[in-house]
């Protein structure tokens, strides 16, 4: 019998595969900066995470009796890349592998695979790692861009040792090679009563360095420039729309501007917030993950604003210096409700809902 096929009998030619590939391409500038800053360590992290994600995905598919061709949709590779870019350079190899397994298994496959996951897989793995290994996940290796880098990361063998055996094997004290991230520094100083401006000057903070990425942080999150380039590429390719990144960043900036003008000692200025931590990475690549974000433009704006409020609140008042990851995960929980309550207005109706 003829299979019943409904119109339309034409298709625009988009596919999941190319969409995912576009995102991977858009992450290339950030990955390049991470290699510049952290040398072979960044390469090792990215490769291990991507391979681990692909392998885990393959095993999951095999176990569930599904076709391995799903691997070709590039989504597992993208998850691996995203996860690697959110990790600190000193992450040991096994932690990267554990994170990748979490991302694929708990983040995605238990829900039924791509398209059904509720939380962003890379972010959920990142948060699991942060909560399980708080020390390692907040120890930031000083990048190679410093005048005197404590350890030569462009040397493959050094990096291999660091990655697989840890800093102890090189007889390097953690204090010697690590430094605080700007966000962490400001937070600790404020708890000691030091105002923001003083803390920043003590840190020798420079907006230009932060924009270019010459600061401590997770390997892929430091360079605002690279992430902006990637984000613009995504928007140009119509992979994402402006709604989430814009509303997210604008909310953080507005809140920061408002509160830093009220109490400049306690609250950091908007530029600092925008350039710091994982905000740019989250705004352009994590919050915009189509599967775990709302579908409609209005919903996306609500989502972005929610992320912005939460990020700024956690950064300003919370126990963790960085709130971007948590805020995206928290808003992920609200996506079904946002989808339900913020639908577009239907043609010929007063509102989207009856």
């Amino acid at each position, binding site marked *: 019998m003829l299979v019943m096929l409904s119109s339309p009998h034409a298709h625009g030619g988009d596919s999941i595969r190319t969409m995912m590939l576009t995102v991977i391409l858009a992450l290339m500038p950030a990955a390049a900066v991470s290699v510049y800053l952290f040398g072979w360590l960044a390469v090792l992290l990215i490769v291990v995470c991507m391979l681990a994600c692909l392998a885990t995905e393959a095993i999951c598919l095999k176990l569930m009796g599904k076709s391995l061709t799903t691997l070709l949709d590039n989504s597992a590779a993208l998850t691996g890349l995203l996860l690697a870019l959110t990790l600190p350079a000193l992450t040991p190899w096994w932690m990267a592998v554990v994170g990748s397994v979490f991302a694929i298994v708990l983040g995605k496959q238990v829900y039924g695979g791509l398209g059904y996951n509720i939380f962003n897989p890379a972010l959920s793995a990142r948060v699991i790692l942060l909560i399980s290994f708080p020390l390692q996940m907040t120890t930031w290796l000083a990048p190679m861009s410093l005048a005197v880098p404590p350890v030569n990361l462009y040397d493959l063998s050094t990096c291999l040792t660091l990655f697989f055996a840890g800093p102890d094997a090189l007889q390097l004290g953690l204090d010697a090679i690590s430094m605080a991230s700007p966000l962490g520094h400001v937070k600790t100083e404020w708890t000691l009563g030091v105002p923001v401006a003083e803390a920043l000057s003590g840190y020798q903070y420079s907006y230009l360095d932060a924009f270019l990425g010459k600061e401590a942080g997770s390997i892929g999150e430091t360079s605002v420039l690279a992430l902006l380039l990637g984000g613009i590429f995504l928007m140009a390719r119509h992979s994402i729309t402006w709604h989430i990144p814009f509303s997210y960043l604008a909310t953080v900036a507005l809140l920061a501007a408002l509160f830093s003008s009220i109490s400049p000692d306690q609250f950091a200025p908007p530029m600092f917030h925008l350039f710091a931590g994982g905000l740019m990475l989250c705004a352009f690549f994590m919050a915009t993950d189509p599967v775990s974000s709302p579908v409609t433009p209005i919903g996306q704006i609500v989502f972005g604003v929610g992320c912005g409020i939460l990020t700024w609140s956690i950064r300003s008042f919370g126990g963790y210096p960085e709130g971007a990851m948590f805020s995206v995960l928290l808003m992920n*929980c609200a996506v079904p409700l946002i989808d339900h309550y913020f639908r577009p207005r239907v043609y010929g109706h007063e509102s989207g809902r009856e």
Partner: protein
Amino acid sequence: MTEIALILLSAVLVNNFVLTKFLGICPFLGTSGKVETAVGMSFAVMFVMTLASVCSWLVQQFILVPLGLEYLQTIFFILIIAALVQFIEMMIHKTSPVLYQALGIFLPLITTNCAVLGVALLNVQQEQTFVTSALYGFGAAVGFALVLILFSGLRERMEVSPVPALFKGSPLTLITAGMMSLAFMGFSGLVKI
């Protein structure tokens, strides 16, 4: 004013009963299948929890403490909660038979919702005043309602997913609740109370 906001914020987000204190898990899992049911349950719990905190505070201050009967705390509080639950059960049966049917056994089981007794006992333990204990009860209930409704939205979405047979039902529900709990860890330290 700030104090009120902080108490509420703390009870709703930071010390969320379900996700950080792990109280009231049973109704949380039991009534989160559908958003509508979850909303109904949320209002019922909000009603019971707020009134239970108020009543138990009154009983504590004006009956138990003056008479030196603090050791009867638990039994008194359970009595209060049971009466409140009975009351709201009758009310829901009258006003919304469908919700009554949907909540089913979980409605009378609010009685044994440890979050309700928990909030009453914590109020006493933390030596709250009348106003703060009412706020704390209300905040805890709002926190419960918030995660219950969010979670029911997630579960409705998971309902149409091709979840592997191994994880269907409770396993995935628990994993998701765990992930939510992880996300709520982000609020830790937000309010220092």
